[in-house]
C-alpha cells in the first residue's frame, strides 16, 4: 500500500518536471562563439562545471567524473571527457588512478605546510598526473577545444585553471594500401584520416630533424587542424611564408577535405588544370619535400596537398623512380603520348574523316566510309553522342553497388556497344576511338588532371567538326597559351619545357639513371641544388690480371 502511494507520488512529481527551454536558444552561431571566447574559468568548481555544461548543451556524450583529491584535504576535482574519443585505460591509469591512489596522498610534512590551492594544482600537474602530455589553460575557449579534440580536462576547486591531458583514442581506419594511386613496386602504405599518423608516416621516411611542421586551425566551426611540412634549408623561405599567409587568410566555416583548401588557396581558380597536387602516398610527398616543395596535411582526409607543382608532376608516378631508368623513361614517354591522345584522339578522328581524308591510306578510308554508310548522323553528332554516353557510364560506375557492378558493365559493353553499332546508330570505328580515348585518359596517376583533360576533348570535337585540323590546332594553341600563362605559387606551370631549363630535362622527358640525378630543380631550390656526388655510377670491380 505504501509502495503504491510512493509510486503515485513519484509519478505526480515527474509530471511537474516539464522540460526547461535550453539555454542559448535563439542566439546565432557567431554570437555564441564570441560569448564562449570571452569567458574565463573561475575558482569555483561548480560554476566552471555549469559553464562547460552550458556551452556543450549538456551533450549526452559529455562524461563527468567527480573525485576528491588528498586523504585529508579532500579537495573536489572534476574530470571531464567526451565519451568515445578517449582511451579508458589511459584515462584510468594515467589520470584518475594517480589522483585517487596512494601516491597522491600528501606526506605529513606537506599537508602540514598547508600548501595553497594553486600550489597543489602545480603539484598535481607536475608530480601526480602520469599522462605523456599535459597542458594548462585558463580560458573556457581553449578548454572546450581540448575537450572536443579528445583530451580529458581536469578542474580543481579553488583554482581558475584547468589541465588538459592527452588520452586520445578513437575508432579509425588502419594504414592500408592506397586506393587511387596503386604502385606495382614501392611502399604500399597510404595516408589515413588522422593527421598525426600522416605526419608520422612522413617522419618515418624522412628521419631528419630538419623536417619541420607548422600547425594552423582552419574553419570557424570545424576547427580543422592543418599542418604544413617542409625541409628547412632546402625550401625557399618566401614559399613557406606565402603558404602560411594563404592558409591563415582562409575565412570559412568548414573544411572537410583538402580539396576545400586547395580551391581556396590555388593560383588559377578558373583554369581546368590543377595547380596543386593531391596525393595519398607518403613516398610521393617525401620526394616532393626533398625537391623544395611544401606539403599541406589536413586532418580528416588522407589526401595531402603539395605546392608548388608544375604540369610535369601530374604525369609522374612514384614507381617511375623505383624501376630502372629504362623502364621509367619508356613508361613516362607512353604516359605523355597517352595524355596527348586522350585530348585529341576523337577530334582528330572527326577532323580527318570529315575534312582530310587524304591523310588516311586508301583502304582504311574505304573501310571507314563503308561503316559510316548506314549511320544517319553527321560525324560530329555521332562522336558527341558516344562520348556523352561514355561520360554517363563512367560517372554512374563510380556509384554502382559492388554486387551488381560487373553485371551492369557487361551489359553496357556488350549490349549497348554492340547493339548501337548493329542498329546503325554509330560506326564501329568510332566505338574503338572512344574506347581508346577512355583508356588513355586514365593513364595520368592524378585524377584531377586526367578528368580535366578528358573533359576538354568536348570543345576539341566541336572545333574539329567545324574547322578540321585547323580547328584542332587552334584548340591546342588555345590550351597551350592558357598553360603558358598559369603559375603555381610563382613557378611557371610549364617549367622546365617553357621557360626551357635544360638541366631539368633529365627528369622530365626521360628519366636518367639514379646515379645521374645529381641536381634539384633550379626553379624551386635556389641554394642547394647539388644533391649527390658525381661518381655514383656502379662499376664492376677492377679485374685482376692473373688468377
Amino acid at each position, binding site marked *: 500500500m505504501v509502495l503504491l502511494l510512493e509510486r503515485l507520488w513519484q509519478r505526480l512529481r515527474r509530471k511537474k518536471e516539464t522540460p526547461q527551454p535550453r539555454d542559448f536558444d535563439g542566439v546565432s552561431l557567431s554570437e555564441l562563439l564570441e560569448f564562449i571566447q570571452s569567458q574565463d574559468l573561475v575558482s569555483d568548481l561548480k560554476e566552471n562545471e555549469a559553464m562547460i555544461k552550458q556551452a556543450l548543451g549538456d551533450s549526452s556524450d559529455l562524461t563527468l567524473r567527480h573525485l576528491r583529491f588528498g586523504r585529508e584535504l579532500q579537495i573536489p576535482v572534476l574530470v571531464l571527457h567526451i565519451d568515445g574519443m578517449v582511451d579508458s585505460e589511459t584515462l584510468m591509469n594515467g589520470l584518475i588512478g594517480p589522483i585517487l591512489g596512494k601516491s597522491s596522498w600528501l606526506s605529513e610534512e606537506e599537508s602540514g605546510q598547508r600548501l595553497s590551492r594553486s600550489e597543489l594544482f602545480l603539484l598535481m600537474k607536475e608530480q601526480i598526473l602520469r599522462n605523456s602530455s599535459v597542458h594548462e589553460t585558463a580560458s573556457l575557449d581553449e578548454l572546450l577545444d581540448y575537450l572536443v579534440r579528445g583530451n580529458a580536462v581536469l578542474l580543481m576547486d579553488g583554482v581558475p585553471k584547468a589541465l588538459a591531458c592527452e588520452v586520445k583514442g578513437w575508432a579509425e581506419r588502419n594504414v592500408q594500401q592506397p586506393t587511387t594511386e596503386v604502385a606495382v613496386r614501392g611502399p604500399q602504405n597510404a595516408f589515413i584520416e588522422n593527421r598525426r599518423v600522416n605526419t608520422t608516416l612522413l617522419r618515418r621516411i624522412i628521419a631528419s630533424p630538419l623536417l619541420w611542421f607548422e600547425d594552423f586551425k582552419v574553419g570557424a566551426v570545424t576547427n580543422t587542424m592543418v599542418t604544413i611540412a617542409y625541409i628547412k634549408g632546402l625550401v625557399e623561405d618566401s614559399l613557406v611564408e606565402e603558404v602560411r599567409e594563404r592558409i591563415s587568410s582562409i575565412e570559412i566555416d568548414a573544411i572537410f577535405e583538402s580539396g576545400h583548401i586547395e580551391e581556396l588557396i590555388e593560383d588559377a581558380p578558373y583554369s581546368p588544370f590543377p595547380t596543386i597536387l593531391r596525393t595519398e602516398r607518403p613516398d610521393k610527398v617525401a620526394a616532393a619535400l626533398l625537391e623544395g616543395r611544401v606539403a599541406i596535411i589536413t586532418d580528416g582526409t588522407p589526401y595531402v596537398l603539395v605546392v608548388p607543382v608544375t604540369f610535369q608532376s601530374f604525369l609522374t608516378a612514384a614507381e617511375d623512380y623505383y624501376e630502372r631508368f629504362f623502364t621509367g623513361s619508356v613508361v613516362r614517354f607512353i604516359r605523355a603520348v597517352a595524355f596527348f591522345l586522350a585530348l585529341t584522339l576523337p577530334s582528330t578522328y572527326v577532323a580527318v574523316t570529315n575534312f582530310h581524308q*587524304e591523310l588516311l591510306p586508301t583502304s582504311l578510308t574505304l573501310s571507314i566510309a563503308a561503316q559510316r554508310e548506314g549511320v544517319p548522323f553527321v560525324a560530329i553528332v555521332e562522336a558527341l553522342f558516344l562520348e556523352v554516353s561514355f561520360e554517363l557510364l563512367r560517372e554512374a560506375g563510380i556509384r554502382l553497388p559492388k554486387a551488381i557492378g560487373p553485371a551492369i558493365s557487361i551489359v553496357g559493353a556488350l549490349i549497348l556497344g554492340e547493339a548501337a553499332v548493329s542498329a546503325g546508330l554509330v560506326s564501329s570505328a568510332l566505338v574503338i576511338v572512344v574506347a581508346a580515348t577512355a583508356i588513355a585518359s586514365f593513364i595520368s596517376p592524378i585524377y584531377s588532371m586526367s578528368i580535366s583533360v578528358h573533359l576538354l576533348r568536348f570543345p576539341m570535337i566541336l572545333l574539329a567538326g567545324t574547322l578540321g585540323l585547323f580547328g584542332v590546332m587552334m584548340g591546342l594553341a*588555345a590550351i597551350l597559351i592558357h598553360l*603558358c600563362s598559369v603559375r603555381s605559387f610563382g613557378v611557371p606551370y610549364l617549367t622546365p*619545357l617553357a621557360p626551357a631549363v635544360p638541366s631539368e630535362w633529365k627528369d622530365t622527358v626521360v628519366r636518367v639513371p639514379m646515379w645521374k640525378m645529381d641536381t634539384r630543380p633550379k626553379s624551386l631550390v635556389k641554394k642547394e641544388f647539388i644533391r649527390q656526388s658525381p661518381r655514383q655510377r656502379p662499376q664492376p670491380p677492377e679485374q685482376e690480371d692473373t688468377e
Partner: protein
Amino acid sequence: MAVLEGGRISGKQFIALAVLTRILAALLEAPTISGTNAGHDVWIAILISTFLTLPWVFLWVQLAKMYPGKTIIQYSMDILGPWFGRLVGLVLIVYFLQQSAHAVRVAADAYVTTIMPETPLIVFIAIMTALSSNCARSGLEVLARAADIVFPLVMFLLVLILVLPIGTADPLNLLPVAAYGWQPIFEASLSSFAIFGELIVMTMLFPYLDEAKEANRLAVTTVLLAGFLFTVFSIVVALVFGPAMGSLIFPAFSLSRSIEFAFVVERVEVIPLVAWTLGAGVKQTVFLWAAMLGIAQLFNLSEMKSLAYPVGALVASFSVWLFSTIFDALQFYTAAEFGPLAIIATYVISLVLYIGALIRRSVRSSRGEEARP
C-alpha cells in the same frame, strides 16, 4: 607611370621568337619571292641578303646599349625630339601592324588556297587573331613561353620536310648558276633584304632580355640561323622542283606534298601546314605585341593590356583590306610594291636614329655634360 610590360625573356626565348618571326613567312611564301627572276639561284640572293643584314643588327644592338631598358619607340622620341620622334614611332607602329596583318593573311590564305577552299577567309583570320590578341594580352612572358614550345616543333617539321623529299631531288637543277646574269640575283637579294628588315622588332624585345649583355650574341645568332635555314630551304626547293619553282605559290606546302614514304606516309601536307599555323600565330602575336607596346609608349598610356583586342581587330581588318588576293600578299616585298618603303621604314630610320644618337652623345660630351639621357 606604371610599368607597361613586366615580363623578362631568356636568351633561348629571344632566339625562338625572332627566328620564328623570320622563318614563318619565308616558308610559306618565298623563296620564289614572286615577281623576281632569280629562279633557282635565289639561294644566292638569300645568302647575300643575310650578310647585308648583319651590320644593321649590330647597329640595333648598339642603339639598345646606348639606351638600355628602352624600346626603339622610346629612344626615337629621345633622339629626334618629341614631334619627329613620334612621327618615326608612328611609322614603325604602322609597319608592325602591317607585318602582323601580312603574317595572318598569308597563313589564312594558305588554308583557303590549298586544303579548305570553301571556308571563307575571314573565319581563319578571325580565329587566329582572337587567339593572338589573347596571347598578346597575357603579356610577353606567356608569348615567350609559347614560342619556347612551338619553336622545336616547327624546327623538327622543317628539318623533316627538308630531308624527306631528297629522294626526288636532282642536283643538276642548281645549274647553271646565274644563267641570266647577276642582276636578277641582286634584285632578289634586295627584296629579301627588305623583308629581313622586319627583324627591327628585335629592338622592341631587347629591353626585356634577362641578361642585356647577351644581346649581341643573340641577335647575330638569330640572323645567321634564320638566314641559314632559309638558304637551305631554297636550295632544297630548287633541287626538288627545278625550273618549276617559279610557279609555286607555297613552296613548303608543295615540298611536303612531294613526300612519299612507304604506302602510308603520303599526302601529309596538312601536318606541316597546321604546325606552321602555330608559328605564323607567333609571328602575328610578336608584331601585335610590339604595336601595342609602341602605341602605349607613344601616347604615354598607363597600361597596354586593354589595347589587345582593339589592335587585334585592326590587324584583322588590315589583313583583309591591304591585300586583295594572295598574290598581293606574296609580292608585297618586291621592288615593284612595298620593298623600297620597307627599306626606308626599317633600315633608313635605324640609320637616322643611330646617327642622331651619335651626334647627341658627342654634343653632350663636348658640352661637358655628364651621361646621355
